[in-house]
């Protein structure tokens, strides 16, 4: 298996936050949301649109959070490129949050950083909790090579940048 990642379709997202809740429920993160939905208003009156952007970890191929961690608490799983945090080693310095181009890592109430684990505790064959619950199918997860045809079909582009985030985005 190669690098895993996401397709996110902004045009399909209705901002219902079902993915946020499903993620928190499945992973038991309580009030720490690994997949918040950010909302932004664009344009000027009367041509104004509200757009929603689900903001999970993009499991970047060159993750700046890994480079920024002073205690090397972060690692990239060789099998699928998923970036993980070792809670035992993490000292909660929040440097990963500041380094992440997307501001993804969250500090928990007990002072450890946490973020999307790509639902590594899901039984084989089940989609990610966020993907499963999304009513408009705005989220697709999987091996980047496997989901690339779907991304092309939807007109998604791979998000660029030095971190090489594993994300196809339909704008």
């Amino acid at each position, binding site marked *: 298996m190669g690098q895993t990642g996401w397709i996110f379709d902004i045009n399909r997202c209705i901002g219902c936050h079902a993915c946020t809740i499903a993620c928190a429920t499945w992973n038991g993160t309580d009030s720490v949301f690994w997949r918040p939905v950010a909302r*932004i208003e664009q344009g000027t009156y009367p041509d104004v649109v509200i*757009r929603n952007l689900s903001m999970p970890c993009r499991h970047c191929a060159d993750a700046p959070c890994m480079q920024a961690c*002073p205690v090397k608490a972060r690692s990239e799983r060789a099998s699928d490129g998923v970036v993980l945090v070792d809670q035992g080693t993490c*000292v*909660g310095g929040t440097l990963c949050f*500041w380094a992440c181009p997307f501001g993804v890592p969250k500090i928990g109430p*007990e002072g450890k950083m946490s973020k999307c684990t790509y639902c590594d505790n899901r039984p084989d064959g089940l989609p990610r909790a966020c993907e499963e619950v999304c009513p408009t199918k705005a989220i697709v997860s999987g091996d980047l090579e496997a989901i690339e045809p779907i991304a092309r079909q939807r007109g998604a582009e791979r*998000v660029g940048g030095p971190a090489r985030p594993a994300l196809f985005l339909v704008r």
Partner: protein
Amino acid sequence: MTRMTLFWILIPLFIGALFVGLYRNLFVKLGVILGASGRFIPFQSLDAAALGRAYADEVVVQRRIRLRGRLPWARHMLISWGFSVLFVFDVLTALLTKYLPSEPFMAGNGGWLFLKFGLNLSGMVLLVGLVVALGRGAKAAGTEEARFNDMPGAAFLLAVVVTWFIAVAMHFANLRPDPSRGWALLGHWLGEAIRGGAPYGAAYSFFWISHALLASAFLAYLGWSRMIHIFAAPLGRIFYHQPAIRDAKVRGVMEGLLRPRGGRS
């Protein structure tokens, strides 16, 4: 090579290792942050009041550790405050004894008693915290909780503190009894307890040099271990409590992502 020559070679090496560790494991990381996200972080929006509140919450009362439980919080408070106050008193003592006559401090002049009291009280606080931490760590060995304990760091610091108390006790035992040394608390009590074996010559030198080397080695260790959180956690967290800066960073990312490819700068 004499023992003291080795001592004067090792001390600067250890202090240098601290600065190299801080450079490699903290300042280089801060460079990564500024390189990756610096343009999204509006430092000019810094809220000084929020900064102060975050410092009080995260550093002074350590609320997040309190949420883990009373015991983890109590031992972390004892260790962090014991260590911090002891460090301040150590520096103060070193400066005062270097630039002012050291004899009043060593022999027990009333004006210098606060140094003895401060050093020993904070040392005792640190000692209690470390003993509790190591006891708790030993009890948790092999369990899931053990992953969160920094046993090597705690054991290292305990060695620094214990050698210091032994050296102080031997030093006091070598001097004539002086009631004012009662302010030295544990150092004084231990000194009186071992007075029968005085004078301590070689043993005192051994513990004093051991303490000095261990303390310097511990400073070096700070920059290369989980102990670096002493510097990284307060710094990162007080900035994390800046909603305006955090929101602006996320907004900057969103606007960048939503911009059509052709429109990117």
